[in-house]
């Protein structure tokens, strides 16, 4: 098994006809993902040739869901139109909407979340690389050739740190890797992923990657202490970040004395999580955990 994304998932791509959308649709197909088509009201009814696959373009997510039974939407729509694209996915009650777009105004994300929080749709992102269940399906832009299926679940705010850890632990493999994104407001949190990994029989141990800003890691630590029985290994980036400076991700900022890497590491360790000082040490800690299972 895996979480949220399996070989049975059927994917539609919002923004498939754009350059990024097309490139990653090709990669998702190459990874064995069942891509059912794209959504673009201006090109509805046409077919897009992606390598040897001919993909239909639908006028709306609702139509795509009705015609294909799609249950995942991956969204590559530019920031100015991301809000309406995600709301369209939510209104179509698609179970999973993965928002890759970087640079979405936070007020738009807040508006989307206010509507989505009690809806049928799980949102991942925005500003995220998406999720991959290696060997089964890929929804987003995580490279599918780093590693195969295995017992580790991974949740991370950062794309490249996800790839780095997948690479270091490639001989062991992963159930699902979820890049939740580095924006201040995101649809799926560390805690959501921890809960899903805890319930997933294929996941035996969990890597949690966090970074400065907010208190998501502290809350994840509290959740681990009370709800997670599987071993968790952690890594936090941003110990050297000065307060008041945004470090690449819109949400990666230490404000006054809150959101520091020290506080996050301490909270995780207090919850029994082993926290690596470098990505490599984190991989070694996970290797030891897997060896002792």
């Amino acid at each position: 098994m895996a979480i949220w994304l399996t070989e049975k998932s059927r994917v539609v791509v919002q923004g498939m006809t754009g350059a990024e959308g097309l490139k990653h649709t090709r990669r998702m197909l190459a990874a064995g993902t069942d891509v059912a088509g794209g959504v673009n009201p201006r090109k509805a009814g046409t077919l897009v040739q992606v390598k040897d696959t001919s993909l239909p373009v639908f006028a709306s997510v609702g139509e795509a869901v009705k015609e294909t039974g799609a249950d995942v939407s991956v969204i590559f729509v530019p920031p100015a139109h991301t809000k309406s694209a995600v709301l369209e996915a939510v209104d179509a009650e698609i179970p999973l909407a993965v928002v890759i777009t970087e640079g979405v105004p936070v007020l738009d994300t807040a508006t989307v979340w206010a509507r989505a929080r009690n809806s049928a749709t799980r949102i991942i992102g925005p500003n995220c690389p998406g999720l991959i269940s290696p060997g089964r399906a890929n929804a987003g832009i995580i490279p599918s050739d780093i590693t195969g299926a295995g017992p580790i679940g991974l949740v991370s705010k950062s794309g490249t740190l996800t790839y780095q850890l997948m690479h270091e632990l490639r001989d062991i493999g992963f159930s699902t890797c979820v890049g939740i994104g580095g924006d201040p407001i995101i649809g799926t949190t560390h805690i959501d992923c921890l809960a899903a990994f805890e319930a997933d029989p294929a996941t035996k141990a969990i890597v949690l990657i966090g970074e400065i800003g907010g208190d998501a890691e502290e809350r994840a630590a509290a959740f681990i202490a009370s709800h997670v029985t599987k071993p968790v290994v952690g890594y936090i980036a941003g110990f050297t970040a000065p307060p008041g400076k945004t470090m690449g991700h819109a949400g990666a900022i230490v404000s006054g004395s809150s959101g520091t890497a020290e506080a996050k590491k301490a909270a995780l360790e207090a919850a029994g999580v082993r926290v690596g000082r470098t990505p490599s040490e984190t991989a070694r800690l996970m290797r030891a955990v897997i060896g002792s299972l």
Partner: protein
Amino acid sequence: MDLYEHQAMRLFAAHQVPVPAGDVAASPSAAAAIAARIGRPTVIKAQVKAGGRGKAGGVRLAPSPEAASALAGEILGMEIKGHRVRQVLVAEASDIVEEYYLAFLIDRADRGILAMFSASGGMDIEQVPASAIVRTPIDPAAGLPPEAFPEALQPVAAKLWEVFVASDATLVEVNPLIVDRSGKVLAVDGKVTLDDNAFFRQDLSDYSTEAEDPLEQRAAALGLNYVKLDGTVGIIGNGAGLVMSTLDVVAGAGARPANFLDIGGGAGAQVMADALSVVLEDPAVKSVLVNVFGGITACDAVATGIIQALELLGDAVTRPIVVRLDGNNAAAGRSLLAEAAHPMVEQVDTMDGAAARAAGLGA
């Protein structure tokens, strides 16, 4: 982007939020002229992007234009929480009866917007117990619920909410929102942060969006995601998380990073050349670490970019560059760099090893 108080005041006024009369001055004589024009006692206020100015002596009452001049002379040039005061706001002094606290902000934990209100606003807001602060989640599509603020303040709260939405703010904080002796409600302080992600739909002509640091300015002009730090090892990497991690690993190896620079996903030769030139322009840099994990981008493309960048830069490459390439097509990338055999470039295959080497060269 954070606004100065005087910018926040102008933004408030544009949305019909009542604010004291006033203007900014960069010299004592300009401050005196503004005070004379106002013709009533004024408050001289340090313009720095930090709170707690009052407690730091950066907010002073001036009964006359002469006093305004003298106080401006004292406050200009002061340093408050690491920020040098270059301008003062000269604002009409209010006769304060009540001080309230009002804010709209992004609540990351709740994934929404939060309204906050306290009847005990002012300089000691940090000491106000949580029970004396009303916190109300706001659905932006629905607008302000009436329970968020006392009835008498709802008109001004509605206007401040309009400021928040119309300018794509992530913070609008008024502390204090006052009631004066005549019963008038006024915002006498304003802290506003605008969402950089929304700049594409905002008119920013009233503000300078330029970074204060000249290297940050140049990097921004080149479209690079760069933050100047105070160390000696220049850092270039791909992906915000990996770059933050690289800074930490270099620090762990005993050197201080000189900057954060994320070149993002598909980094071509020009981006790499721009990145290297900005980092090498920093005179404090003694060594450079390029840390790339090839995900979508193949390392041979990155290596080609580095080689072309080195050609573009020529003699400007005056300090050693340690390169670590891993991931997609790492072997091909490494052998390209090895063949190029640039005298200032050295390869180390692991992140920890490369960080240690760059730290050794640049500490």
